[in-house]
């Protein structure tokens, strides 16, 4: 190996992931971190770490950190500088090893238009499209507007008709300019029933080149993948061969070095596939390929970067079983999958059944808008796809996660749909199949979990009692109201009233009974009308995260007393997610109509218009342009008009 110290120019789960393999290979690891990550796990995992006073995009600072620590190689992870050809050039110019493709390859593939041309030249089928936005009619609707420099769905718009085209192009340009500093966009045919299939490639500096089969990543929300698997249920050996060959043809033309991914769009109906783009980095979803091939992709990247030969050919690549990965995001599926922030009160991956968790967070981690809101990737590898899906769903359901809204319940629901199990996965899966966005709890289940929570709180109250701690819970020698707890779950109020019986069991208002077998500060083992709950419970302030049989339920403890004067402002426009006010279109005194866009909020590089809900006059503006706002923050107040004058 030509290097023994590796700097990881990234954060979170991918930094941890790279460190893990590097450590296995005996390589020292250097982490860089910004203030937001001062307590992060990957910093602790690294052998040494250097604080960045700017950001993970500050190439100069990163090179300085490498010099400071004697790192001889840099692994960029994904995102940030991973596909920044200039940075790769600087790294090599500094005499360091760049763990990735050559800067030339990165540059070529980074330009989507050039990449498409190269693919076409290499005999890889491409979708009809044009950089000339006048050619929309020729391409036909629906079509896609995409950022030339884009990726990850940013700066991408689906356009259903000619009427929407201009707005879509403008928005895409704006997002592209903001996100990539390059506002060029192009148009492309939109395949309605499409699957996203990608081929993993590995090339060494000596002409060695293999593909590791496909990954299907069709299930996406907001154009971002959330469920990925290998193999694809739609790809048979013949198709795999054809796609693999197409990918390696292109990679060969590029003399591709390191790990990369050639993305295709597969028309589900015809089985035809079209080149989309090449990702010149390690993909988020690489673990499913590792699972089915048994090849550690980070290890291969490091070996290739060190100049080693692959040492095996295509024939050596074997596929075994099925692997599925889900991306656990801090986001609210019920609210258009908008990012969520907050503190992870609970984050305890299930210890059984077995799954691979690539995660950069832990209980206590604060999720902010600073970075991508992915909390973890959970990967299961099983003999069959059906088993993998079931096990992964079970792993998700058995984990204790809360404090921040996540897509966990939604992911489990996706994995349990008959459509998913049947392999009927297209890019419109979420809209078409419409799995429940949140944990579908029956009123009865909710009631039972609220009872679990109430008895848990009761136990805590008794355990922490400064006096009379030995006396039975809520003991009375006269008539007194029942003991009770009130919870709020999604604006629904649940009251649990109970009484302690002489034998230590509890009786609820409806006469059903419960017995607490064991109370601990972080869990309760309780039997309620014969059903046993062994619930892990986490609490922070008024939030109680109760783990039930199918996942966690977050109950807000309704305080017994409310402070006077806590009223909601009516007519207020409230931020539905944390974000930045990029455009403030009104000021005090302005007359607005229902539906008018008053504020443009940017979150996760997407624009979200905040519209007036009724006609009225702006009476208060509480934010200014460029201001960062919290979820639920009051932005401005519109006093409704009494009608009459116009």
């Amino acid at each position, binding site marked *: 190996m030509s290097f023994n110290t590796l700097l990881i120019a990234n954060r979170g789960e991918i930094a941890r992931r790279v460190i893990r393999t590097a450590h296995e290979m005996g390589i020292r690891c250097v982490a860089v971190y910004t203030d937001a990550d001062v307590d992060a796990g990957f910093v602790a995992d690294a052998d040494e770490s250097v604080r960045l006073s700017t950001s993970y995009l500050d190439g100069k600072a990163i090179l300085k950190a490498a010099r400071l620590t004697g790192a001889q190689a840099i692994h960029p992870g994904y995102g940030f500088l991973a596909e920044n050809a200039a940075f790769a050039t600087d790294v090599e110019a500094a005499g360091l090893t760049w763990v990735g493709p050559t800067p030339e390859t990165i540059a070529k593939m980074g330009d989507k238009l050039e990449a498409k041309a190269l693919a076409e030249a290499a005999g890889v089928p491409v979708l009809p499209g044009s950089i000339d936005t006048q050619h929309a009619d020729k391409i036909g609707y629906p079509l896609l507007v995409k950022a030339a420099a884009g990726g990850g769905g940013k700066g991408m718009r689906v356009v259903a008709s000619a009427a929407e085209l201009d707005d879509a192009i403008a928005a895409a340009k704006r997002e592209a300019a903001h996100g990539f500093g390059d506002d060029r966009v192009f148009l492309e045919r939109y395949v309605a029933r499409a699957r996203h299939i990608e081929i993993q490639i590995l090339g060494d500096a000596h002409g060695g080149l293999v593909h590791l089969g496909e990954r299907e990543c069709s299930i996406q929300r907001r154009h971002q993948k959330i469920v990925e698997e290998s193999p694809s249920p739609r790809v048979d050996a013949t198709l795999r061969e054809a796609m693999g060959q197409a990918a390696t043809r292109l990679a060969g033309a590029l003399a591709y070095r390191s790990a990369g991914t050639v993305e295709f769009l597969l028309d589900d109906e015809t089985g035809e596939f079209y080149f989309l783009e090449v990702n010149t980095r390690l993909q988020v979803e690489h673990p499913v390929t590792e699972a089915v091939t048994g090849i550690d992709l980070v290890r291969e990247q490091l070996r290739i970067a060190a100049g080693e030969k692959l040492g095996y050919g295509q024939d050596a690549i074997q596929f075994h079983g099925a692997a599925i990965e889900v991306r656990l995001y801090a986001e609210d599926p019920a609210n258009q999958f908008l990012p969520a922030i907050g503190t992870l009160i609970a984050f305890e991956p299930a210890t059984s059944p077995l799954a691979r968790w690539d995660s950069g967070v832990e209980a206590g981690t604060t999720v902010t808008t600073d970075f991508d809101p992915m909390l973890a990737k959970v990967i299961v590898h099983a003999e069959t796809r059906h088993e993998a899906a079931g096990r992964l769903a079970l792993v998700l359901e058995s984990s204790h996660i809360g404090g921040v809204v996540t897509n966990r319940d939604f992911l489990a629901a996706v994995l349990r749909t008959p459509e998913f199990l049947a392999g009927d996965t297209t890019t419109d899966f979420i809209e078409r199949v419409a799995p429940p966005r949140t944990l579908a709890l029956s009123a009865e289940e909710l009631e039972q979990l609220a009872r679990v929570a109430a008895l848990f709180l009761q136990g805590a*109250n*008794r355990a922490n009692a400064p006096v009379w701690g*030995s006396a039975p819970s*809520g003991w009375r020698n*006269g*008539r007194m109201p029942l003991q009770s707890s009130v919870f709020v779950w999604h604006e629904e109020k649940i009251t649990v009233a109970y009484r302690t019986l*002489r034998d230590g069991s509890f009786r609820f208002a409806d006469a059903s009974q419960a017995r607490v077998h064991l109370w601990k500060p972080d869990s309760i083992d309780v039997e309620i009308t014969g059903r046993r709950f062994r619930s892990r419970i986490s609490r922070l302030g008024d939030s109680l995260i109760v783990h039930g049989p199918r996942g966690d339920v977050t109950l807000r403890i309704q305080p017994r*007393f409310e402070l006077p004067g806590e009223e909601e402002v009516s007519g207020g426009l409230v931020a539905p997610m944390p974000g930045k006010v990029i455009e403030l279109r009104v000021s005090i005194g302005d007359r607005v109509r229902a539906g008018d866009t008053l504020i443009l909020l940017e979150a996760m590089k997407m624009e979200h218009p905040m519209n007036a809900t009724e006609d009225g006059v702006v009476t208060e503006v509480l934010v200014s342009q460029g201001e960062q706002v919290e979820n639920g923050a009051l932005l401005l107040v519109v006093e409704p008009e009494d009608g009459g004058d116009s």
Partner: protein
Amino acid sequence: MQNQLLAPPIQSKLDTRSAAFEENRNAMLEKLEEIENLLDEAEAGGGPASHERLAKRGKLPVRERIALALDPDSPFLEISSLAGYNSSYAVGGGAVLGIGVIAGIECVIFANDPTVLGGALTPYVGKKWMRALEIARDNGIPYVSFVESAGADLRRRGSSEKKDGNATAGAARIDHFAETGRFFYEMIELSKLEIPTVCVVFGSSTAGGAYQPGMSDYNIMIREQSKVFLAGPPLVKMATGEESDDETLGGAQMHSEISGLGEYFAEDERDALRLCREVVSHLNWRKAGPGPTAAAAPPLLDPEELLGIVSPDLKRPVDVRDVIGRIVDGSRFEEFKPRYGRTLICGWASIDGYPIGILGNNGVIYPESAEKAAHFVQLCNQIDVPLLFLQNLTGFIVGREFEHAGIIKKGSQMLNAVTNSTVPHITVIFGASYGAGTYAMSGRAFNNRFTFIWPTAKIAVMGGKQIAGVMSLVRRGQAARKGEPFDEEADAMIRAAVEAAQEKGSVALEASGAISDDGIIDPRDTRTVLGICLSVVRNKPIEGTDGYGVFRL
């Protein structure tokens, strides 16, 4: 934990499969059911109509007010819940009294029940109120009152007479206004003794009642609900001709902004209770006595079995150790002088980890029993250990032999020791409590901290049969002196009537109804009640005395 008792657990010889046990248990359960029904009555207060009126005005029932003030899931020891039993007043007596935990602090809570005669100050309310103040003073715990009172009970006077018209209302009849108002004195005293008094005014608090907030350290008043004035608009009109209304005369806003009588202004009842909790939480409360000094292990013997120990026929002997073994930690009991004065069991144990010295009767008190008890009381005072008296006695032994042995002298020694003892006394009457033995065993009149009574217990100067018999002998003697024939038939009838009346008057419910104790408890709750009391008494230092009166030795 230090001070773990090394004594072994009590070995109970109680046969829980015997017919007697089953019989006792059934009788006890039957009595408990009667009490449960009375508790329902107490809760109903002034009845459904008055509760509805309260609800309509958005007001909370008194017990809900208390529950909201207490720490969630904490116990509440209600005192004299059946006050007014068998009187012309509602069971409960128109006020709720108890000890509860607010913000981790043990407090006396005295709350008017506005559904009962508008919370008027009836004789029962008065006696309960005095008891509340006494508990606060004796144990040094904050006094919290929820005031909503129409004031003096102008409609009825001296009316603690019984429903059945029995002429036992003498005490009430000599109750003159000139003697009233001691409550206010007591409240001021509490403040002087550094015992905070917190008053939440839920409604009217007029005339004399106005001094309740007047004499409290902290007043919480509720918007458009609290009304505190010396005289309401009608009386003001009568006295001076001035026209006024409740709000400007004595509303919460007026008192908070103008008169300064109200320290805290609450938006509504819940808000007032929030403020009440906040006030108590700032009291910087520090209990003087040490916390539990031993581990609180539950008894090894089953407390459920307490139901079957005592026979409704109190003549049947009971081994008090069977009671002790079912209420003390780990059933451990170190008996003192077990071979001497065997009718009065003395020894050490702990409840909830609090050490106690126990005196329990195994029947009548003999001279040597009394002597042993006097000795034991002194020992507990020497080492600052509270005393638990478990009463089941027919009195001091009588007869020539025992008079010769100095039963009066020995009994006086015991009374001297008990009277001058300064460690807290807690008394549980689980069987009979007759005669001077009641006093010697630290009865209510002997300044104990708490007295509780089991449902089937009886308390009187002597047993009904004895009284009836004594009276019959007197009549027989009179007849003999006058040389008149003795009407055996009439005597039998009179004897039966006297016995029945006496028995009826001596039952636990009567005593409890008259607020002569702190309430009837379910035998199975004895340990819990005592544990709470032993914690409460520790708000003040536990200091035994070294000074007594003259012991007649």
